[in-house]
């Protein structure tokens, strides 16, 4: 479990990083909490590791009137400790304390986690739930992609050749919105077996419901969110959730179907009760 040989570069500017990443066999190192173990297992052939750790411009936070822009290299622990302003009524700091162990959260970054697009990654589901926009940068320039459109499948994203996430922009959620979060992991620090986030804003009549750890991109259930908002009975919701999960066609085992149903309903219930 030692990596195959690779070159290591630590660029000093974003421009330099982008120029390095476009070369073949290059891969961005954004904390390394997943990538380094993968290198050790020789699962990911990498010729050149481009360490983004030296780029101050990826660590900043910009608080504007409608949203907050978090540099992609902001560590999980920074959210957990409330060292950055929060756009999510407390959901992001809460989520940041739910996964892995502190040693991992000290080094792992939000941008790195989203770019890897592990289906079970908590930030992925959270970004989709919060309608985050990802600021991408590459040799061709900058572009903006919604979190929902960013994830195409397990470990597959909209990132182009040599492109990287510069920042994660989270729109400030309404003060009247409430969130619910339900997560199943076999043990503390483990990846989620199932994870659901519900956002309910009765005043505005807006609701969102997202399932993560769903063997692919996070799944949105707008119709169920709307039904829950309109006060559907729990039996009716349960049936609807089950149907929607089957319709998602992800090949869930019956047990997984039951587990996902539970987390989705619990997230809804928590958001409704809050």
């Amino acid at each position, binding site marked *: *479990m*030692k*990596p*195959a*040989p690779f070159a290591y570069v630590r660029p000093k500017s974003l421009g330099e990083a982008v120029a390095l990443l476009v070369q073949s066999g290059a891969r961005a190192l954004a904390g390394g909490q997943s990538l380094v*173990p993968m290198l050790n*297992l*020789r699962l990911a052939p990498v010729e050149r590791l481009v360490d983004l750790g030296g780029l101050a411009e990826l660590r900043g936070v910009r608080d504007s009137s409608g949203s907050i822009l978090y540099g992609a290299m902001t560590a999980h622990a920074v959210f957990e400790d409330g060292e950055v302003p929060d756009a999510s009524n407390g959901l992001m700091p809460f989520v940041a304390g739910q996964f892995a162990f502190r040693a991992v959260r000290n080094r792992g970054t939000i941008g790195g986690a989203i770019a890897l697009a592990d289906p079970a990654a908590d930030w992925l589901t959270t970004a989709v739930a919060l309608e985050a926009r990802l600021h991408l940068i590459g040799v061709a320039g900058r572009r903006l992609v919604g979190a929902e459109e960013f994830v195409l499948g397990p470990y597959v994203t909209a990132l182009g050749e040599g492109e990287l996430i510069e920042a994660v922009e989270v729109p400030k959620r309404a003060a009247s919105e409430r969130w619910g979060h339900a997560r*199943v992991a*076999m*043990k*503390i*620090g*483990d*990846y989620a*077996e*199932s994870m659901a986030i519900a956002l309910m804003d009765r005043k505005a009549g807006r609701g969102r419901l997202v399932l993560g750890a769903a063997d692919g991109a996070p799944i949105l259930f707008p119709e169920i969110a709307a039904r829950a908002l309109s006060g559907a009975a729990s039996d009716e919701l349960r049936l609807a959730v089950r149907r929607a999960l089957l319709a998602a066609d992800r090949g869930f*085992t*019956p*047990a*997984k179907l*039951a*587990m996902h*149903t*539970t*987390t989705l*309903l*619990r997230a809804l219930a928590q958001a409704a009760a809050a």
Partner: protein
Amino acid sequence: MTATRVSGEGVGASVRRVEDRRLLDGGGEYLADLRVPGTVEVAFLRSPVAHARLKGVDIPTQFRNSVFLAEDIGFTKPIVAATAAPGFQSSEYPALAREKLRFVGEMIAMCIAPTRAEAEDIAQACTLDLDELPAVWDIDVALAADAPRIHEGWRDNVFLRSAITAGDLAGIKANAPVVVQKTLRMGRHAGVSLETRGVLAHYDRRLGELVVYSSTQFPHVIRTVLAQSLGIAESRLRVVAPDVGGGFGIKGNFHPEELAVAALAMKLGCPVRWIEDRREHLVASPHAREHRYRITAYADRSGRIRGLEAEVVVDAGAYSVWPWTAAMEAGMSAGIMTGPYDIPVYHGRAVTVCTNKSPLGPYRGVGRSGACFALETMIDAIARAVGRNPEDVRLENMVPPSAMPYRSATGKFYDSGDYPECARRALAAIDPAAVRARQARGEPDGRLIGFGMASYTEQSAHGTAEWVARGMPVVFGYEPALARFTPDGKLILFVGIQNHGQGLETTLAQVAHQELGIAVADIVVRHGDSSVSPYGMGTFASRSMTMAGGAVSRACAMLAEKVKRIGAHLLQAPIDAVTLAGGQVAFGSQSVGFAAIAEAAYRHPERLPSGEEPGLEANAVYEPQCSTGAFSYATHACTVAVDPGTGMVELLDYVVCHDCGTMVNPMIVEAQVVGGVVQGLGTALYEEIPYDENGQPLASTFLDYLIPGAPEAPDVRVLHMETPSPHTRFGIKGMGEGGAIAPPAAVVNAVNDALRPLGAEVTETPITPERVLTAILAAEARR
């Protein structure tokens, strides 16, 4: 009891562990800490497939001198571990595969380089020429009549079928009003010592000796078998186990890696090192468990068991491990099946199946964890069948203290104890009535509460009679100790066991203190080096405290006599008038200490009584009077909350009441129990290496293989009973494995108690959320 607890450091005192300072300060010296100049690192090229003919290995030209195949160490003999049991089919386990590959992870070649990473590069650059064969990836596949044979010339893919027959089962069957049958499974897992395995071998030119450092539990035994396998004299081989970071049985085997690395060091004449990585450990170290049970109980209407029938089928993997043999796991399970219960009629069958998986080896609680799981699940099922509480049914079936000593239907000799009292104390602590009241009230969060318990007996410190009965290649009958004063009056104990977490550097010193009164701080315990201590068997099978403790006691008692003789002479007192206490030989108000006595013994023989030999050391060998083992026992009881929506199980309370005879150090005993329980919870809830139909292991990193961590460990409440064994020095019984035996049984019973209102039942470990939910859905489908 022979020990009197007069001192703060003797038998029975919770002395702080003397080895902890170096271990906790990072001062321990593990295999990977050793530095020998010029060492080359080994990466093994291991089989990527489960079953294939190996036609060739293509080595790139530039690496021709860096890759070594079976023919390069052709002077080594394959590992053969056969039991004397009739019908056993033997396997030949070569250090490096020759013509056939039999499991994913089997070693094909050794690649050497200055660093491990470079050695792995070389391994990656080699290509294999293989003819793949169908994988025998499961017990059922292996037992099919047309199954491909894993070993040529075998009748079938079965190492051994054996049977135990006690009493007239047909008569019982004909008249039993209650018949309960269960089919159960316990998953396959790994040992997961914190320190993985490792070997470093180099040739000592001055002594003309091959020195092999190995992270092993039994260096002397390894020296013997390694010398035989290498074809060299034992006097030319030294085996050293430095600090060993956990073994749990995994490091109590003779590994092909040990043979391959030692052989390469001989061949090359330079130091060679291999450090197992975690992936190798999970995929290719000896695995644990994987049992299947079909068990039927015949009971009367009160739940009293009249007869029991059990079949144990174990997936032992591709090869028989030395010295235990592939058949040990199933044999021990079938042989202890009746547990602490008085079940006069028992028919047991043990089937050990050969598959294309990593070989199965001993693991904390060998065989007994499965037997306990099978029988204790059965007792709960009987209680449900007769409409009684499981604790009442258990107590009524237990061997009563009045029947002690007791010979079980399987021929085990239970030496002493009060099994029902132990269960009652555990019950009083967990309070089933309160748990049931809470269960009836219901939880605000919808979780279901369950209560479960399990009892077992733990055969420990078994000697000659037991190992002979098992037909083993080695009979682990005794343990030696050499106790030697230094000329300045301190004591060194040289012992043949190996301490890897048990606290033996402390507890053996406590025994010496008990006999001599010398301060624990003035005692050094030396172990783990075949050139330092007398030949001993090592540490496994819950034996070291009883065996080495007995030997240290005997050697120190001999020394005490000599110390008194010399002390009396120095004090010019009659021998009968002096006492040895508190590190002094005293006569009235006069006294003389160890320093003066040792000085006389070593440096001033003119001060010795006439006829007294100079020197101050004693050699002793100890074997318990009764060599069938001292039986410890325990009852575990727990309360769980099961989330029927997610399948998650939380332990709310866990109680152990146990009796391991006289406790040398209750603090260490308690920690051993807790550690064992957490490891047993791994079997119960987390740890599993499933294989797919291609024979690929599906858990090869800690991403897929879960072990309980500190957050998962419940606050285990440990209650002690002390019934000294009548057959051992101080009445000590072994207890190292016990904690790990009962958790699968206790937790399965608790989960099933919780699931009862849903009509669901789990019958397989680990109890994952997936399995709990599947059981609930199956019950829903039945309704």
